[in-house]
């Protein structure tokens, strides 16, 4: 009986602990256990400054996916961002991907502004129209430069 | 008769200090060999070498035909199954009950049924007058009981060789006599070869077939109890007559030790 209760307590500890770990990884951390239910698109930006891998993707302010990878294309001098979206989210082919900032010191995220086309992008397609991230300094210096 | 244990020209060191000098010993099968000496004489070190817990600086130890200096770890494991060791304080695992301690070698080295093991454990505990202590923890036992439980564990595999470190140290005279009788009974029934390390003269003379006397890491004498008693070696006579080791004091050397510590 003594051994049984020891086993029971330890078993409970391990089961509860692993559940908690999985909850943390999947729900809070947003790890996807499988690739099913998702597809990915490509968007090329002139400047992704401040955007991080794992940054979320919004359509109309709703979080629908995340930036999976960001790499530099040395030939075109562009940043290539791989965006992973849920299957239920369909993006018209003339949509615009732009990098925005949440709040003044908040994270950068990708905003997709849907276009009007009836054709939808599928796995591996590219969002042609993009707007790069705008840095505050650039904005300010532009304003000062124009005023000169 | 070929000897079951033979030690040839054994030297041993602790760091830079030499503790055994050219020790030689042959032990015959079924013999009770007592290794006797005062504290610091190197007898515990000798035992450590016999158990292959320490590597000799020089010399050879053969047990049951195996040179334990060059033995493979697999052979050593097999050899150790044939050897039982009872340590001075019992050396029972403090996290296990007495019963679990005694059954440990069986559970690790045999595939006997649990019930058979149970009965074997109780047989040995009965033998050591420890019936009913099976489920106690080692911390709940007295020193003498720990020693007997350690002995029970040492003989649980019915080893051919039993090594016993200080059987009577720290025991009251009655318990110590009981333990001596138990050792003799064990030898008679199981025909074990025994190596017993002790500093107790009385028990040594009672149980030994032969005695080896160590002084400062050197063998002073090996012989039967009678030969030892009749020896004219002054140090042995001092040991037997319980005289302190008065030596001639060299005044100059003494002064030097006091002043410089050398």
């Amino acid at each position, binding site marked *: 009986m003594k051994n049984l209760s*020891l*086993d029971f*307590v*330890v078993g409970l*500890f*391990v089961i509860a*602990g*692993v559940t*908690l*770990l999985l909850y*943390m*990884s999947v*729900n*809070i*951390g*947003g*790890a996807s256990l499988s690739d099913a239910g998702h597809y990915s698109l490509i968007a090329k930006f002139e400047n992704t400054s401040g955007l991080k*891998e*794992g940054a*979320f993707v919004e359509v109309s302010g709703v*979080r629908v996916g995340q930036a999976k990878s960001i790499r530099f294309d040395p030939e075109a001098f562009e940043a290539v961002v791989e965006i992973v979206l849920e299957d239920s989210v369909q993006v018209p082919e003339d949509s615009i991907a732009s990098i925005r900032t949440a*709040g*003044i*010191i*908040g*994270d950068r995220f990708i905003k997709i502004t849907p276009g009007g086309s009836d054709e939808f992008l599928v796995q591996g397609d590219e969002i042609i129209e993009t707007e790069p991230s705008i840095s505050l300094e650039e904005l300010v210096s532009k304003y000062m430069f124009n005023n000169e | 008769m070929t000897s079951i244990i033979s030690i040839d020209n054994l030297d041993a060191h*602790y*760091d830079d200090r030499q503790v055994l000098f050219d020790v030689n010993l042959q032990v015959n099968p079924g013999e009770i060999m007592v290794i006797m000496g005062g504290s610091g004489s190197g007898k515990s070190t000798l035992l*450590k070498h016999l*158990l292959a*817990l320490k590597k000799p600086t020089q010399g050879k130890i053969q047990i049951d035909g195996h040179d334990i200096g060059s033995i493979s770890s697999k052979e050593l*494991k097999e050899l*150790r*199954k044939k*050897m039982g*060791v009872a*340590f*001075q*304080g019992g*050396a*029972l*695992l*403090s*996290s296990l009950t007495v019963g679990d301690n005694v059954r*440990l*070698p069986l559970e*690790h*080295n045999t595939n006997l049924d649990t019930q058979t093991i149970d009965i074997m454990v109780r047989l040995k505990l009965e033998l050591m007058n420890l019936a009913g202590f099976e489920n106690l923890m080692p911390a709940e036992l007295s020193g003498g009981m720990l020693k007997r439980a*350690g002995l029970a*564990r040492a003989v649980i595999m019915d080893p051919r060789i039993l090594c016993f470190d200080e059987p009577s140290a720290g025991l009251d005279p009655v318990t110590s006599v009981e333990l001596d009788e138990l050792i003799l009974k064990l030898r008679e029934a199981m025909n074990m070869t025994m190596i017993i390390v002790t500093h107790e003269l009385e028990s040594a003379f009672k149980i030994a077939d032969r005695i080896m006397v160590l002084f400062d890491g050197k063998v002073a004498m090996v012989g039967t109890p009678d030969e030892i008693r009749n020896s004219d070696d002054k140090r042995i006579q001092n040991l037997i007559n319980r005289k302190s080791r008065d030596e001639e004091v060299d005044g100059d050397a003494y002064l030097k030790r006091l002043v410089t510590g050398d």
Partner: protein
Amino acid sequence: MQSIMNGVSNIGGYTRNVISFIGMSFVFLLNIFKSLFSRIPPIREIVRQIQFIGVKSLPVLLVSSLFTGMAVALNLYNALIRFGSADLLGPSVAVGLIRELGPVMTALMIIARVSSATCAEIGIMRNEQQFDALDCMAVNSYRYVMLPRLMAALISLPILTAVFDMVGIAGGYIVGVVIHGESAGTYIQGIFDTVTFNDVLIGQIKSLVFAVLIIWIPMAYGYFLHLNRKAAGAAGVSHATTKAVVISAISMLVMNFIISSLML
């Protein structure tokens, strides 16, 4: 002149001892891992050790994590409110806990509770010749004594770290939402939006590495107790325990920095 010579050779001797101890400790760790493959690990012992390392650490961990979370939230709130960014409280507390404070504080609590006890226990086993006895019984003491503790630590620490993180975040919730009246939705949704799987992963990798460090070091100090002949016996055990705790804590913190900088 003589004293300079002595000083130099003391340093040399000390260095030699340290290096040989480090070498032996690595062989020791290797032997533990090797014993994993020799036979079925002793499950009974592993369960017992999880009970000791994991289950019994829960109460102290719950209290310390709650107050750590609250203290962190309190400080962050006071800093963030100056920039008008109190809505970032949730994410800040969560990321700080999951990446840094959770693994480190959990490891520190386990060092205080388990490492010291383990070193003392193994040191006493060495003193009482229990390892000699195991050797003589042909029982592999690595497999029987060390492996269960290592496995139990590897299982328990990630779980304890997760508990610490979650309770700490709850502590932050108490300070931010209950005491200072920030919006509960902002606090919680901010965490969901900000914390990435990478953050959780780093925290968990840390807790696994710490688990090895803080159980291996005290075990090695206890196991090699007899080699330091100047400090044997009870004094040796207390000396080794103190040293093991200090070295465990320091190497854990150094390793924390290394992992953080490698995985940022």
